[in-house]
């Protein structure tokens, strides 16, 4: 074998070893990401069962932690136990989420917002992103989510529950089967308040709980358990800006949206009953004091439970420094065997019983979508300020105006197919100064599209065209009315009676008009006088057929003499709009009326 070939073999061997090393590193670090994973935040826990048709259980960690906090083995003194058994400590073996993942037809997931620490739950990477995760899991599995929130994870869930589900008018809580909070500081933490207040102020209060916390915090200095996740590490985080929001009855907690009353919330809390060690002293120690789970007092952790009975309280009586290792303390309680059993029982009870409603294939538009759709229909730029809106199967309608507080509003009606909006019609009250030819209240046209009755009701259009009680007209009475208005016409009473109705128009001239340019057209619907179109000159009734009348009007330029318009002719088509005369384009001078003849 030559030296050259040996060198080649050595290089090849090194390359292979390095490649294997690299591959191993990459593969071991790959998260078991599920369908709702966004940036690695939502991870399905092994064993990864089928997602579809499973009941998802989402574990949400608390302050100063990540999703690996759930890897803590069950029970107290986890590292000591493992070492006594001669085993190496293996995070993740028998973890809480893994036990849940083993349940039939259940998938377990962790939500990790470590990257957003130390922000408050309102940060978009915490509460809002958690809402997205919950909604995504519900859609992916077809079942509502069971959320298990430890510590601040419960508050993040409270915030997320009130968020929109992102697809419809529903909220995230409607995709949650039950929330289980463990050691959640529902009204804040007295310990955090104490830590942030300063130890000298503690001496002023002389509260027994705070005195006991002094002893516990003394024990924490230099405390060094193998597992990183211990109660003393949690205390370090409590001094952070995030910790400020968790002060007892803080403003931040007060501003959180309340839990929806339809959402079951189960509270689990630790209650350490601690007696200060007597020590070597010849005097008796103070009486036993309840310090909750140390980080969260009992009143806060049990402040809210809904539809799930009384909060579950685990009571422990550790002695001395071993309070740091108590299974009831804030860190260890989440993997206490009793707690895990409770949660698993609830999951088994809920499993398969709460499918989510299928996402509508033709969802109602959001208000933003309505605004965009209305704006798209405008022929000229205009502001769009939305008012009330309604959504019906296949239809949407919205009232809007071009200023926030206008009385001049428009109702725009859309048909809706697969979530896409298509303009059906705009409806506006007829206004004398409205020159836009397309925006005319036309209930007849809308009715012709056969919308739901409730939509018609919303728009103010009558369900059926208002038919005159009679289609006949008293021609003599009509003529008399015209004359009473100081107009005269060449049309006789008999001719009026014989006109095809129900809509009839009669052109008349002012009495005493010298040049014949003072012209009005009187409109009658059935046996009622319904309005008068006047013109500054040469308004003419061109034709009519009982449902539509056509008027022409010459257009005068600014320099035209009154005799001789040179701006062309405008044609107006006049119909009955259900409750009033409507013209397209609108007539410049129209006096509506509603008088029986």
């Amino acid at each position, binding site marked *: 074998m030559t*030296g050259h070939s*040996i060198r080649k073999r050595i290089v090849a061997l090194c390359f292979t070893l390095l490649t294997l090393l690299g591959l191993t590193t990459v593969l071991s670090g790959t998260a078991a990401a599920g369908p709702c994973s966004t940036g690695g935040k939502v991870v399905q826990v092994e064993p990864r069962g089928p997602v579809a048709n499973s009941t998802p259980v989402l574990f949400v960690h608390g302050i100063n932690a990540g999703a690996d906090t759930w890897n803590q083995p069950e029970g107290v003194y986890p590292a000591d136990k493992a070492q006594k058994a001669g085993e190496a400590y293996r995070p993740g073996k028998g973890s809480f989420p893994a036990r849940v993942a083993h349940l039939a037809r259940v998938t377990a997931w962790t939500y990790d917002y470590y990257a957003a620490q130390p922000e408050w739950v309102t940060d978009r990477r915490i509460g809002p992103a958690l809402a997205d995760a919950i909604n995504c899991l519900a859609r992916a599995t077809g079942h509502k989510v069971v959320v298990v929130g430890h510590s601040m994870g419960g508050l993040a869930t409270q915030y997320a529950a009130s968020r929109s589900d992102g697809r419809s008018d529903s909220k995230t809580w409607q995709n949650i089967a039950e929330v289980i909070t463990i050691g959640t500081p529902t009204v804040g933490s007295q310990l955090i308040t104490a*830590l942030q207040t300063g*130890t*000298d102020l*503690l*001496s002023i*209060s*002389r*509260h*027994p709980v*705070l*005195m006991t916390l*002094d*002893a516990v*915090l*003394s*024990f*924490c*200095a*230099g*405390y*060094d*358990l193998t597992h990183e996740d211990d109660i*003393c590490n949690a*205390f*370090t985080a409590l*001094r952070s800006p995030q910790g400020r929001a968790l002060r007892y009855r803080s403003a931040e907690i007060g501003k959180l949206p309340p839990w929806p009353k339809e959402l079951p919330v189960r509270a689990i809390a630790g209650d350490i009953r601690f007696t*200060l*060690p007597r*020590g*070597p*002293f*010849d*005097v*008796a*120690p*103070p009486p036993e004091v309840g310090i909750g789970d140390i980080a969260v007092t009992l009143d806060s952790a049990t402040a809210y439970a809904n539809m799930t009975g009384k909060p579950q309280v685990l009571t422990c009586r550790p002695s*001395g*420094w071993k309070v740091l290792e108590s299974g009831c303390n804030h860190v260890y309680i989440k993997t206490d065997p009793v707690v895990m059993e409770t949660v698993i029982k609830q999951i088994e009870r809920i499993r398969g019983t709460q499918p989510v409603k299928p996402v509508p294939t033709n969802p109602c538009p959001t208000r933003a979508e309505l605004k965009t759709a209305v704006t798209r229909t405008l022929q000229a730029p205009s502001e769009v300020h939305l008012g009330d809106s309604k959504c019906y199967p296949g239809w949407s309608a919205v009232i809007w105006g071009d200023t926030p507080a206008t009385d001049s509003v428009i109702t725009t009606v859309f048909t809706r197919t697969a979530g896409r909006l298509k303009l059906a019609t705009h409806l506006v009250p007829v206004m004398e100064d409205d020159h836009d030819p397309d925006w005319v209240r036309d209930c007849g046209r809308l009715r012709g599209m056969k919308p739901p009755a409730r939509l018609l009701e919303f728009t103010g259009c009558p369900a059926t065209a208002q038919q005159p009680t009679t289609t006949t007209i008293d021609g003599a009475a009509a003529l008399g009315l015209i004359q009473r208005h100081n107009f005269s016409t060449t049309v006789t009473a008999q001719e009026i009676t014989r006109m095809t109705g129900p809509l009839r128009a009669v052109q008349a001239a002012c009495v005493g008009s010298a040049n014949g340019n003072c012209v009005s057209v009187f409109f009658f619907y059935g046996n009622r006088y319904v309005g008068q179109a006047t013109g500054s000159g040469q308004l003419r009734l061109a034709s009519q057929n009982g449902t539509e009348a056509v008027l022409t009007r010459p257009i005068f330029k600014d320099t035209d003499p009154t005799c001789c318009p040179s701006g062309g002719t405008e044609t107006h088509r006049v119909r009955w709009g259900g409750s009033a005369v409507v013209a397209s384009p609108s007539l410049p001078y129209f006096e509506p009326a509603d008088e029986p003849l």
Partner: protein
Amino acid sequence: MRKTLLFLGLTLVAAFGIGYLALRDDQPPRPPDNGKPPGAPSLPYKSGGPLPAQAADIAQDLASSDAATQRAALTPELDHALEAGRLLPEGTRIDLSEDSWHEANGYANAQATLTKPGKPAQHVLMGFAKRSTGWRITVVEVLK
């Protein structure tokens, strides 16, 4: 080629040996550094350091012959919460453990051997809180 490989191998071994000799800690072996006296139970604490002078004085005040001085060594709220009376009998001796001081976030602890007259020595864990007037004792636990 064999000579080359042999030379490389010897070079590596020599380099390792030189590195070890250069970087090793020359200090003599030290006892487990959690400050406990020999035979005392093991506590899950990191290596500690020497007590600050004021804290050491306060710890010794517990063994003062004056009952009021003993009480003054405690935080006011602990003093207030304990029954009235002398904390420790006259003649009590407190031997602070070297390098047992741990301090974090305004709190601390240390270990000591406490011997009351005529009684067996007790290994104790003492807790401290930093107040504006200096360190004060928050708790004393006898370790079993």
